[in-house]
């Protein structure tokens, strides 16, 4: 992730709500090669499974931080 919606919100929230963490999930900063759209989305973690996995890992690390 570089300069998308996540980056913009992250900056806004950091300014006004420093207690809240923003984590940006999107297409990584590398070339996405030809494949079916479904496979490309899955490879980027941008399907339901990938999003759920990211939430679990975020939740795990949050639980650890408590």
């Amino acid at each position: 992730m570089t300069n998308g919606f996540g980056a913009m919100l992250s900056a806004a929230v950091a300014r006004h709500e420093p207690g809240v963490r923003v984590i940006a999930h999107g297409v990584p900063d590398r070339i996405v090669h030809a494949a079916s759209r479904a496979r490309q989305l899955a490879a980027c973690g941008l399907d339901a499974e990938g999003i759920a996995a990211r939430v679990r890992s975020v939740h795990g690390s949050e639980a650890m931080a408590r």
Partner: protein
Amino acid sequence: MLERIHSPADLRGLTSGDLQVVADDVRRRLIDVCSRTGGHIGAGLGVVELTVALHAIFETPHDQLVWDVGHQGYPHKVLTGRNQQMETIRQEGGLSGFLKRTESEYDAFGAGHAATSISAALGIAAARDLLGEAFKVVAVIGDGSLTSGLAYEALNNAGHSDRDIVVILNDNEMSIAPNVGAMSKYLNQVQRNPIYNRVRARIGELVEINRSLETLVRKWEESVKSFLTPGVLFEELGLRYFGPIDGHDMKALVETLSAVRPMTGPRLVHVVTRKGHGFPAGEHGEKWHALPPGHDPATGRQRTASSANPAYTAVFGRGLVDLMTERTDVVAITAAMPSGTGTGLVASAHPSRFFDVGIAEGHAVTFAAGLATRGLRPVVAIYSTFLQRAYDSIIHDVALQHLPVTFAMDRAGVVGEDGETHMGLYDIPYMLAVPNMVLAAPKDGTEMLALLRTAVSHDGPFAFRYPRDAAPDLVGPISEIPPVPVGTWEVLRQGREIAILAVGTMVRQAQQAAESLAIEGLDVTVVNCRFLKPYDEVTLHALCAHHRVLLTVEEGR
């Protein structure tokens, strides 16, 4: 014959007759491959003879052959050691559908977007001259790409440069859709001018009398110029003009290219081809620009029908037609892709308010800005990847003047088989950076039409993005779809601790993720962030009060 051609070196020294046999084999092979695997077939079939002749006369890969838009590159791939892999084209881990430097030493320059070849070839020629190297540089460009300004910038720069460079104008009277504009008319005139054709007949007689090709070419030029110079435009730009020649006549191609290769200075060879030549369904135009897999090569008909919902593109086209019936101030603009963007429906329903400006994205946007200054509401439908080419027009001509232009960015996000040259991954950051720009992404087809309705009533620039995919919903008529208040989000599921802030296509995926997480006892909030800019400050504030983590999810970077 084709099985004996392991590399272009095997073509050199063959007779025109033998080269034609190779070309016939290449054509059969392409039809066979593309009917099974899909792909851009029309452009490739039109340049089979030209490709064989270029590789036979020019000493590739030492001589640098630069193609324009990879679509023309299929026969080139077959002849340059990739024949066995053609079945993998446009598939994961397979050959690219376009040209790629990392794929072959014969691909002198990558090509996915139109009109780059002359610029790249001139750069290669300048490097050669600077480094004291010796090879020929050939740029192939389609007449469709001559609707793009970049090609003229390059011709203007090449023309009086004295660089040794050959431009092959592949004139098939088509880009993807039939070409538009003055240049297309001009090239047709050149082809059909009776005086010119009489001259060409005389030159045929001269060939019999005088076998020296150098002399032939010189006499050709003199004779033609004494009546009329067909390529006067190119001559004025400083390129020596040769042609037009029949791009399916191997003998003419071989003779002309053999004569042109040893010369120096900038020169242009005008080759007339028929897109889809040799494929019955392929000569019929835009529809056969590219084939999805599973086509009958004899008829071009698709063997299996798709059962998915209509694509976003189709929903958009239909919605725009109806909105333009309702709103007579709305006008539609496409950059040579009426079918690809769904705006072709507008062409028939509201012809006077439909503008196909050619492969000219920058011009399309500044043209829209001009329309907007007089009170009209232009909707510019361009793929995310192609709109990259219009960035200065978006900032300088639309946004800084706060003009109400709508950008419908189709093919946003990952685009599948077209690969990296066509990815719509950059529009979020590039639009977020533009002052005054509203940026939105719908969660489904109905919301896309709601955003379209919102956009044409908004007092300023407005962009929305949607994917190359079927809409997840069945969409009703736009007349029944109300606008969305600008800058509002929609909380779809209320949970605790973690909120997923999903954009566009990611909303449904986030909802599904939330359902499976709920089964595991993890209760997350899901928000449809349909406006990326301006974002919903009220909802964001409320989310911050009740959550420790906000996970943003977007199909882009």
